[in-house]
């Protein structure tokens, strides 16, 4: 008898301990979960729900199924396809121009040139500057009458090359791409540099002993080792391009003639210019889908290459 009660007592004790532990786990997670669910998860659920409504943000709205999605892709006046194209162009430039520059710089700095520390510090500086500041600065560079760029072209007697950089259809998108790429070269460079520094010196030495040149060491040893970091950089670069907002808002406001709109600026227009909160939600949902789709696609592409 006595033995039995002690066994059930033990069980009870253990159960109580489990409950206490469960409560503790919950309490530890609580602040994070509150923030995460209230600001990210719940709003996304609401966005998905509202994306199927014709809704001005304050009335009840009417359920219209997938009409918003259909309109998004077919109604040319919404400019969603234009904005998507612009984002993808930006993403292409990021992946094929910016990241190779970052990789090149990271590899060069990995070879310990004189002044390694100085270059590292300088190349990372633009990352710390607010994009709005960079936008304002480049507006002064692009200014058609007094800007640095046109003044320089004037001095070089290349007046035919002068442009109203952010105001002409031909040059507006390019004017956004250049500062974007310039600003974040340093960010990716530092990530990759961390990887390059992580390659063990023995491995390099062994390859050099076998007669490999510095270029071959980089190509066949360093790059394969830092591949996971490159993958992360590619994902950040592409999803970052899809999310672009700041520089477009500052430099062109989506103009001229809405040729430089990106999904985020369209989203803001839907809220404040057109009062179409349902359509705004639809754009949000499309952005989430695109970000995840590209992240998965890039991960898969890197896996394929490895095998």
């Amino acid at each position, binding site marked *: 008898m006595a033995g039995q009660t002690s066994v059930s007592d033990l069980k009870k004790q253990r159960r109580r301990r489990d409950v206490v532990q469960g409560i503790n786990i919950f309490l530890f997670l609580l602040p994070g979960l509150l923030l995460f669910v209230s600001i*990210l998860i719940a709003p996304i659920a*609401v966005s998905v729900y509202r994306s199927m409504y014709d809704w001005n943000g304050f009335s009840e709205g009417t359920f219209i199924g997938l009409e918003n999605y259909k309109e998004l892709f077919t109604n040319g006046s919404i400019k969603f396809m234009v904005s998507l194209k612009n984002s993808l162009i930006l993403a292409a430039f990021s992946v094929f121009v910016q990241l190779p520059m970052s990789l090149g*710089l990271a590899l060069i700095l990995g070879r310990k040139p004189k002044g390694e520390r100085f270059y590292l510090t300088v190349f990372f500086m633009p990352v710390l500057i607010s994009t709005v500041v960079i936008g304002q600065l480049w507006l002064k560079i692009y200014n058609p009458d007094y800007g640095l760029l046109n003044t320089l072209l004037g001095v070089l007697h290349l007046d035919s090359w002068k442009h109203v950089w952010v105001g002409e259809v031909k040059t507006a998108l390019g004017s956004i791409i250049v500062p974007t790429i310039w600003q974040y070269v340093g960010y990716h460079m530092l990530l990759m540099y961390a990887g390059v520094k992580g390659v063990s010196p023995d491995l390099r030495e062994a390859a050099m002993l076998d007669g490999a040149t510095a270029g071959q060491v980089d190509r066949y040893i360093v790059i394969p080792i830092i591949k996971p970091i490159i993958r992360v950089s590619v994902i950040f670069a592409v999803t970052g391009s899809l999310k672009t907002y700041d520089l477009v808002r500052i430099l062109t406001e989506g103009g001229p003639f809405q040729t430089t709109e990106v999904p985020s600026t369209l989203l803001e227009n839907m809220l404040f210019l057109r009062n179409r909160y349902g359509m705004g939600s639809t754009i949000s949902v499309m*952005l989430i889908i695109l970000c995840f789709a590209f992240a998965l696609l890039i991960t898969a592409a890197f896996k394929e290459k490895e095998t």
Partner: protein
Amino acid sequence: MKEIKQSKAMKFDTTYVPKGSNPVAKTIIYILLIIWSVINIFPIYFMFTFSLKSNEEIFGLNVAGLPRDWLWSNYASAMGTGNMGLYFVNSILVTGASIAISLIAALMATYAITRIKWRGSKLTNAFFMLGLTIPIQASIVPVYVVLSKLHWLNKYSTLIVPYSAFALSMAILICTGFMVEIPYDLDEAARIDGCGLWRTFFKIILPLMKPAYSTIGVYSYLQCWNEFMFANVFISDSQHRTLPVGIKALSGQHTTDWGPIGAALVIATFPTLIIYIILCKRIQESFIAGAVKG
């Protein structure tokens, strides 16, 4: 034997590129590095010089040179009518609070995920990691509608809460990297000594996590200090503007007057840059630690 190895290593260190590679390639590499440095430094120099010039100088032929008259009055008008001082304080408040909140929440959540054994800890971690891919725009419509219905726009907390939430995923990712490296024997020992979960967390884990704080701080800072979209949409009154919104407003007022705008840009940028240059080694190491642990 050891000495031979060492001397070999030394030899290879010295013949190691670019010192031993052919001089032409070496020169080209240095030229590239110097050109890119100039491209990175010049805009900052340009910003500083035009913040001290009058329009006559900027629009004359002295676009890129040093200012002839150093017009410090541009700074007075950026601080006075431009209110840059207030915006600067606002930015510090919002960024500081967001970093603190996300850091505390991340430390607690990571502790529950990595150091307590329970089913579902992996799933919870994966759940939080969704935040790395979810764009900040995803939640802007519902959050805006709810906040405006609650009359909760135009406050510091309007920005602090979303910023903390969006910094959380990265903070947990970095925290995990650091926390799994703390030996689990320590928890065991603490439990034997009668420490509960909370005391173990406060007395043992938190002090050992100190190296992680600066790394998380650097990442959260980058996210919050420069954030423009939420700040632009949620803050319309001038009392609570952060620097990016303030600069945009100022440039709207002074469309033709470049000097004060330049001064505002310098005020927004130089304190960060100066701190960065003083602490550059630590900041870079923090950033790199985040990349490696992540």
